[in-house]
């Protein structure tokens, strides 16, 4: 069974069809790429999957269950989490706190017991912090765990977003332009890091990216959107040579 399945997912904003009958399937463990020119509807697709928008028509299935129209926090608790194109950390919190907060779903203790600071709370807090440190290690931010997250460099903030998303223990991780604004060296590190966390945590990854070299070297399966429509789907090599894709990016040959 596929992990995530979009069936003719469509969303219209007034007269604009931002995503038009897009269908694709992601298998467990895949590194899946979603590409397309600006305004193709990639981030809208993410918003549909994570429950920010409800599709006008069509279906979205996660582990065989329909999730379209479910509130974002419920979808997160089912195991889909994401990062953002423009960084949206909880800025005045420390790096560690950002990650611990995202583990909210898994906190068991009640408000009363946490006010009373019972031993169970202390134990749980320690466990959550230990887990968060593990995640920070995976994105090599463990050495800045107690730094205020707003003070991190851009590349580090991007990695923290990934760690924070990981803290919800997702089965499917959505990365919205994770390499945006990174220099070549940082991109290369990110490539290795994404592969690593997939191995280490048994994740499936769906990512949006503009950097073709990055996508082609990382993803096993790629979907191409243009003007809200799906124009191609396949492995990196197929996509590279697809005339429709080339036309979408470079324009029709004169």
């Amino acid at each position: 069974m596929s992990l995530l399945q979009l069936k003719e997912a469509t969303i219209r904003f007034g007269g604009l069809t931002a995503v038009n009958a897009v269908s694709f399937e992601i298998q467990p463990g895949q590194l899946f790429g979603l590409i397309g020119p600006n305004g193709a509807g990639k981030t809208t697709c993410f918003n549909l999957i994570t429950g920010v928008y409800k599709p006008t028509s069509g279906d979205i299935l996660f582990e065989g269950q329909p999730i379209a129209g479910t509130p974002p926090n419920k979808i997160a608790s089912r195991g889909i989490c994401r990062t953002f194109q423009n960084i949206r950390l909880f800025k005045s919190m420390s790096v560690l706190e950002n990650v611990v907060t995202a583990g909210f779903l898994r906190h068991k203790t009640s408000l009363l017991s946490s006010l009373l600071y019972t031993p169970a709370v202390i134990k749980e807090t320690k466990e959550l912090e230990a887990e968060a440190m593990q995640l920070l290690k995976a994105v090599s931010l463990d050495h800045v765990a107690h730094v205020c997250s707003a003070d991190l460099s851009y590349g580090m903030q991007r990695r923290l977003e990934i760690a924070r998303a990981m803290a919800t223990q997702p089965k499917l991780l959505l990365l919205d332009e994770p390499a945006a604004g990174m220099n070549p060296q940082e991109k290369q590190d990110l490539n290795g890091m994404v592969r690593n966390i997939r191995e280490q945590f048994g994740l499936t990854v769906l990512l949006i990216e503009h950097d073709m070299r990055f996508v082609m070297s990382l993803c096993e399966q790629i979907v191409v959107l243009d003007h809200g429509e799906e124009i191609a789907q396949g492995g990196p090599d197929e996509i590279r040579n697809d005339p429709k894709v080339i036309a979408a990016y470079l324009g029709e040959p004169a």
Partner: protein
Amino acid sequence: MFLPIGGVELSTLPQQLVDGLLLGFIYALIALGYTMVYGVLKLINFAHGEVFMIGAYCALFTSWALGYIPNNTLGAGQWWMLIVMLVASMVGCGLLGMTIERFAYRPLRNQPRIASLITAIGLSLLLQYGGQIFLPLNQNIDSKINPAAGAFTIALGGGKAVDTATLKNTLQQKQAAFDEYLKRTKADPFNLDADGKKIRSEAQAAERDLKNAADTGKGTTLVIPYGKVIAMIATIFLMMGLTYLVMYTKRGRAMRAVSHDFDAASLMGINVNSIVTFTFLLGSVMAGAGAMMVATFYAGAKIDTFFGMVFGVKAFVAAVLGGIGNIPGAVLGGLLMGLTEGLVSWLGFTAYKDAVAFVVLIVVLLLRPGGLLGSAKVEKV
């Protein structure tokens, strides 16, 4: 220390500052509700003052339900009544706050913010004027339960503890006795017999005592009613609890996450609706506690449907002063407002103290637009 302006007595300064500080704690308690709601929803909850007003009514009704206490002072075994009243106010306000959020603000969450703002103003007016139909007006808890009776007196500057109120009282009694003597004996005030001279000299001595106490500053005495001390201690405890809750519990952390980024928090699995409700609950509970304390411990506090107006506005100013959305800022702003009022009263401008509070606000906002502890946001482009 600057020289006191003519007619201003240095000796009354400490008392005014202490009173101002106590009042400031109450402002802070209410300001917390404004600032927390603004933090998560970016909404000024103008109905917060009216939640405060309802809290005072909850305390009033509870005091009625607990029974009249004829001797005007709370007996030793009756302190539990205050606790019951406090809890009743907090619970009543908490429920009201959550109801307002659920039925007035939540349906408008995704509408332009101005819609919620106008709803808030409307709700405030609805409670103020609608309440007049159902609620008893011009009530006073003070006449039923008055723990404000009795006070700590503290001597300053090495002098003996002198309660100027008592001195004034004595003076009045002596003067009355002298008047009464004159009336009774129809004696000539310029040609008194021994009895008359004795009574007159007693009255003069009382006058001297009072004058000395005020003049020398040696007799500077703080009079702090027990009730206000209780109020201050309770407020400090509530604030400590709140700080702990917001900083160290999962719900507090989730609250801060929601206030940073509503959507991102939701996508990280935080149920924002429950967090928003919780925020309203907390803010309203604090307002409820403040309302009970003002209604009970401030002699002469008249409870009517406009009870929340002055306190609501002042607390809002305090929240803005400290930097709205900032919790320590609300406390700082509240204390500053209270102290300013005390200082202004000391200078003899009691009638203008509300105006001065706003002048302070304007000056602070001119110098630091984000408030004292707030940071002015710079939009990145």
